[in-house]
């Protein structure tokens, strides 16, 4: 395994872990079926891109986009995260406040389809279908992005982000706030009868998830240097849902596991499929198509056989909890 491959794997893993943790906060913990998740990663990527790139007249002016402020690291990444959070506000205000659960899911799904279509058609905004290219990664003006040291640097930048996101998510999930979120997920009406404001909690987590999702986009775009509508079609959200379902809902370990098994694992496994199988050369697009079929099967399979995922939501036992046997002993005494 060469180091470029390892670095790519690690960066992709980091991005996917961050995205899955965000989706898990929204879906697994809080019960928000955010079928539009990918647009938050997308807005983060676009924001980071237009913040870090030169004005669009540069490089011969072959692309047209807004912004172009050439800001240094870490501003584009912060900007990406903020963009994700900002996008969550109007979307959340409409969808989360007013709609019932299944309508929310559908509206969000359709939103991500429409958003993709609009960005594709509105060329001067973000260069339409062609997307944005030559996005400079952090410190790419000081270290040549094609070198091994840059790869190392990028992994070194991604890792703390993963740790930070994991820390934030852990603190949320394992706190009384996390407990209230899970209660709201289990029975929203009962939670509000106990004084919890479900709309406020959902908006909050929607924005937090948007921020984290935006960050994942910023990290990704700095590495792959391009970003186009084809990168964020609505099925991308479904992969992340598959990851969260497979890995295990409502816990960060499950989210990490899911990220490693599904988006990362899948890519790697299919890479191992040989170019020819017993003399037959599969058509070039067969593998990706079969990947999607497998994702679908994975979702259906897990929902049928193991809906709680590989690592289920942990049961919270408090210190001093009576041991079951102990109590029985007391009764018979």
């Amino acid at each position, binding site marked *: 395994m060469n180091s470029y491959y390892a670095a790519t794997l690690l960066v992709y893993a980091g991005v996917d872990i961050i995205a899955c943790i965000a989706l898990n906060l929204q879906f697994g913990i809080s019960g928000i079926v955010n079928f539009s998740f990918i647009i938050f990663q997308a807005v983060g990527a676009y924001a980071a891109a237009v913040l870090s790139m030169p004005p669009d007249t540069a490089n011969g002016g072959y692309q047209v986009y807004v912004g172009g402020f050439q800001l240094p690291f870490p501003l584009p990444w912060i900007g990406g995260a903020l963009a994700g959070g900002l996008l969550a506000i109007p979307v959340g205000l409409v969808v989360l406040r007013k709609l019932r659960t299944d309508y929310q899911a559908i509206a969000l799904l359709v939103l991500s389809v429409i958003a993709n279509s609009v960005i594709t*058609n509105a060329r001067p905004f973000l260069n339409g279908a062609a997307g944005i290219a030559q996005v400079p990664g952090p410190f790419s003006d000081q270290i040549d992005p094609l070198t091994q040291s840059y790869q190392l640097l990028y992994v070194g930048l991604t890792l703390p982000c993963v740790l930070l996101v994991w820390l934030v998510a852990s603190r949320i999930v394992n706190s009384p706030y996390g407990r209230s979120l899970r209660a709201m997920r289990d029975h929203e009406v009962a939670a509000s009868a106990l004084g919890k404001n479900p709309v406020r909690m959902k908006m909050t987590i929607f924005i937090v998830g948007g921020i984290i999702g935006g960050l994942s986009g910023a990290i990704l775009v700095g590495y792959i240097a391009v970003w186009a509508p084809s990168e964020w079609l609505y099925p991308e959200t479904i992969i992340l849902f598959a990851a969260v379902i497979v890995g295990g809902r409502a816990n960060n370990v499950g989210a990490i596991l899911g990220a490693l098994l599904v988006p990362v694992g899948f890519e790697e496994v299919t890479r191992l499929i040989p170019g020819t199988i017993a003399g037959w050369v599969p058509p070039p697009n067969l593998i990706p198509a079969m990947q999607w079929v497998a994702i679908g099967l994975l979702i259906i399979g897990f*929902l049928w056989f193991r809906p709680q995922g590989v690592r289920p939501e942990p049961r919270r036992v408090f210190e001093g909890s009576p041991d079951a046997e102990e109590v029985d002993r007391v009764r018979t005494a």
Partner: protein
Amino acid sequence: MDLYVAALGFGLISVSVIAIAAVGFTMQFGITNMINLSYGEVMMVSGYAAFYVNQAGVNIWVALIPGALVGAVLSFLLNRFLYAPFQRKGTNHIGMVIVSLAASLMIANLMLPIVGYYTSSYVVDQGPLLRANGLVLTTAQIAIIAVAVILMLAIHGLLRYTRLGKAMRATAANPTLARNCGIPTQRVIDVVWLITGALCGVAGVVAGMNSENFSVSSGAAYLIPIIAAAVLGGAGQPYGAMIGALIIGIVTELSAAAIAPEYKEVVAFGMLVLVMVLRPQGLLAKRGAMAAAG
């Protein structure tokens, strides 16, 4: 002004296509409580079935029949072997939505290696132009509208005047009560999926006729105006879906003329959100299944 009259003409055809599809979609929800997000993909598959028959030299109008058949069978199998088992298992509403989404992904991607990535088109003889009051439509387009009208009347007749229709309405209103009254709800549901599947199939072929070309990715695109029409009319209400289709079809075509054709879907989406926010129960509110959902 001519532009708008022409748009109105296109609107009528749009209405026809959406109506056929939306009635089937909404009946699936109304009677089996299933938001079938694979509906668009089944339309696409049926469209391709008709395509191959068309390529073999059969007139596209005759090809409506294999299209309907494929739609019926595929929808029936989808429910029998995927949706119903999950529902029996007690999967919640959102779980079912995720299942149907996964199924749509699988169907689309199984079709890709078979039919390829390129777009396809039907061989349709448009026939002579017909003009009335500034409206200009080809005979083929008029025929599409006629098909829609016939099917709407057929559904109306089915629901209102046949025993099966009554059984369907009873099952939709209260499945347990219906079963206790001796209605074979399981068989009714099977028939519902066959009939709505046939509608889905016809809609897929007609949608293909109405566009210059279609491809595997058309499936997802079809779904947006269909959902919009169904929600606008009131989820589970076939007559509502007809009205919803009327409104969505006309408004999207008029706005396409006013703004730009690429933003047709955006308008449909905007209307969908507006309805969901302002009047979630739709124009013709329905008791029972609607209240249970969410």
